[in-house]
């Protein structure tokens, strides 16, 4: 089966594959279950050794995950597709993970990256804003939970207990009052300037109010921390796990706010300029995490970070035969699955709405979009904040899963990695970017390290040892993929139609063809990064 036909999204033209789908599901499930059952493998002898080989194992895991992909792609009876999708993710995968922790861990990792890719896809794929600092929002979510749910929190309380300054209950009241008043005036001024053009007075009073808001929040939070400092000992290992649910919402909120704060000054820029400045700001967040020793423990990192504790879920997991130390992993697996499902739903719904159309309009032509009544900065900020909030919630779950975070978890390569998932999968295509996330994560965590392990005993010289050349192989795969399928593995409907629309237009006018060619090359090679057609005499503010 050639690559293009394998990923052909035109479902109607294909034969019904219900039986093939079910058969594939049963076979791969059986192999997966067998290869993750240690006693069974040992009883198998040589065949067991073969199944345990890291390369074969990675191969079977990939094959199994392809089930979900085929359930989405293939034409088959709805019940079969639902059965394979639900059965794979909710029954077979967790069962196989009962014996092998790394399988659940890998699945969680794939889904976290899938959510990140979906978030970045809104910013890059839909709104056409190249963001190279996306992982900053992931960090914000991770630290939001990490600081409070670890011994760090007690450290902070102790520090402020010893250095209270002039803070007392009165400060808290003043801080809260200032916050409320300035926030209200910002809302008021904003409403006013939406109706009539802003004046110098309105602009400056808005800035003053924003400053007051920051001051108020600082005062209030400082006072609150000082007042709480007596509790330091009872909070020695962080706040109660019950706060996990509240923090799920808070991490979304925190990341969205940081998204807006970063977005406000930079979204007036476009293309390459935006890419460079987001890259810089992403690094700023990492450097902050590195240097705010009191809050983040600097490069040492924060550990141990708590996770939620759900007694009924634990007893359920116990009843299903999961060992005690696996309960939290199974819990996180289910949680990530639900959160990813919700993120996907939000994505699909936003895409087919007024806001989704506005994003795509901005990507296609900013000047025209604005002339049609789309407020540029506001619409871009919504894209930034939405993308950021997905990263925020997954950052928090990542912190809970790893129980350890340090600034190094959030470096530039993570941002580039997520971007490569989006581009490899197909910008603007939701199933595409999820597939991209799965492929890149499998390559990075299983296939390439597996290649290294499998060839370790061959005694190859270092220059040609695959274990040493992981990044090179990864790079070659990416380059090859982009050359063969520039629109991505599962391209977006719009993009496919644009790239291949010459096929269904035989008697074309010269104008039409010229336009089509020009657009095709722009779409493919600039990859939505800097649509070249923005520059011409209709202008546009830089």
């Amino acid at each position, binding site marked *: 089966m050639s690559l293009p036909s394998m990923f052909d999204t035109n479902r109607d033209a294909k034969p019904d594959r219900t039986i093939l789908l079910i058969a594939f599901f049963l076979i791969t499930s059986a192999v997966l279950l067998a290869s993750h059952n240690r006693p069974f493998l040992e009883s198998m002898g040589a065949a067991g050794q073969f199944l345990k080989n890291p390369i074969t194992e990675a191969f079977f895991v990939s094959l199994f995950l392809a089930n979900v992909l085929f359930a989405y792609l293939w034409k088959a009876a709805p019940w079969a597709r639902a059965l394979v999708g639900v059965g794979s993710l909710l029954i077979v995968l967790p069962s196989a993970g009962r014996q092998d922790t790394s399988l659940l861990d890998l699945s969680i990792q794939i889904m976290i990256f899938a959510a990140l890719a979906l978030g970045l896809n809104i910013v890059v794929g839909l709104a056409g804003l190249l963001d190279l600092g996306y992982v900053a929002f992931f960090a914000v979510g991770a630290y939001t939970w990490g600081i409070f749910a670890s011994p760090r929190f007690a450290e902070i309380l102790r520090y402020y207990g010893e250095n209270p300054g002039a803070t007392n209950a009165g400060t808290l009241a003043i801080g809260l009052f200032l916050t409320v008043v300035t926030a209200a005036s910002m809302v008021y001024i904003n409403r006013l300037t939406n109706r009539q*053009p*802003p004046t110098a007075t309105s602009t400056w009073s808005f800035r003053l109010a924003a400053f007051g808001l920051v001051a108020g929040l600082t005062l209030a939070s400082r006072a609150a921390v000082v007042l709480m400092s007596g509790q330091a000992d009872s909070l020695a290992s962080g706040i109660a796990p019950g706060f996990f649910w509240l923090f799920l919402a808070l991490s979304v909120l925190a990341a969205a706010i940081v998204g807006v704060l970063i977005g406000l000054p930079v979204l007036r820029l476009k293309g390459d300029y935006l890419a460079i400045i987001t890259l810089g700001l992403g690094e700023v967040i990492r450097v902050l995490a590195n240097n705010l020793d009191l809050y983040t423990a600097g490069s040492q990192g924060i550990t141990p970070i708590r996770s939620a504790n759900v007694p009924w879920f634990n007893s359920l997991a116990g009843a299903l035969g999961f060992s005690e130390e696996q309960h939290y992993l199974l819990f996180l697996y289910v949680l990530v699955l639900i959160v990813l499902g919700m993120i996907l739903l*939000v994505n699909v*719904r*936003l895409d087919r*709405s*007024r*806001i*989704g*159309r*506005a994003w*795509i*309009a901005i*990507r*296609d*032509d900013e*000047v*025209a*979009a*604005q*002339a*049609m*009544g*789309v*407020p*540029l900065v506001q619409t871009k900020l*919504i894209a930034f904040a*939405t993308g950021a909030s997905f990263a925020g919630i997954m950052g928090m779950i990542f912190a809970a899963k790893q129980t350890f975070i340090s600034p190094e978890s959030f470096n530039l390569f993570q941002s580039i990695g997520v971007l490569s998932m989006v581009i490899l999968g197909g910008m603007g295509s939701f199933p595409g970017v999820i597939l991209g996330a799965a492929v890149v994560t499998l390559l990075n965590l299983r296939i390439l390290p597996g290649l290294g392990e499998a060839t370790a005993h061959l005694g190859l010289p270092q220059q040609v040892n695959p274990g040493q050349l992981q990044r090179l192989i990864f790079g070659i795969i990416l380059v090859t993929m982009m050359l063969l399928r520039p629109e991505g593995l599962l391209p977006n409907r*719009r*993009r496919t*139609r*644009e790239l291949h*629309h010459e096929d269904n*237009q035989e008697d074309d*006018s010269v*104008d*039409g063809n010229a*336009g*089509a060619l020009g*657009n095709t090359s722009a*779409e493919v090679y600039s990859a939505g990064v800097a649509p070249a057609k923005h520059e*011409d*005499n*209709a*202008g*546009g*503010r830089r």
Partner: protein
Amino acid sequence: MTGTGNILDVRGVMKVFGGLVAVNDVTMSIPERSIVSVIGPNGAGKTTFFNMITGIYQPTSGTIRLAGRELVGMRPDQVTEAGIARTFQNIRLFSTMTSEENIMVGRHARLKSGFVDAVLRTRKFHDSEQEARDTARLMLDFVGLSQWRDELATNLPYGDQRKLEIARALATTPKLILLDEPAAGMNPRETEDLKSLIRRVRDELGVTVCLIEHDMRLVMTLSEYITVLDYGSKIAEGLPHQVRNDPRVMEAYLGRGAAAGEYGKEERPHV
């Protein structure tokens, strides 16, 4: 042609880019439900003038009022919301969207459903989507592009792309529509079509039309009033036959010597 009954009043607008005065102290009024034109040789500042009215450029000085409401200081999207729509000299459709979706974007400012409505699929969301789709179909019918509804905008023939841009602009329910060289690149038959479309925009929808155009036959037969710009300044204005016979206009288009001779019907070779 000043006083009450004007939809747009432009007073002494000026735009300076660095040392270059692109538009110099232009005053112009557009009567409600009229069809007017702005003409002038290449580089006369016509498009810059349009860009100031639509908020893409802020004038260095001067005022622009739409039905008495000051537009200077507004962003382009706010100007659109206030009631001015435009098309572009070089077609700027959303190339990855269908004709219908292009027009639905034009409806953006008039729809009220927001982020939360979209995520929760509220009644408000469904109502506003339906409204946008209905408007899109109405507008496609109006400009005669119904057969292209689900086709990508880039796949439309050139002349139809221009019409689609007009339909998209009309979807914003404007009081005034600015057409920047709508006939550029059209053959005579397409131009005739366009002429009747522009008349229908005014007669059937009651939208005031202002166009920049180089096709003099179109300008002279369609416009009720013409303003001529040259080197950023207004050099003449009036009824078509007045402008046609104005010596300054002939000079601007043909040069001093030629202006003394006979004035041709088309100043510029048809592109």
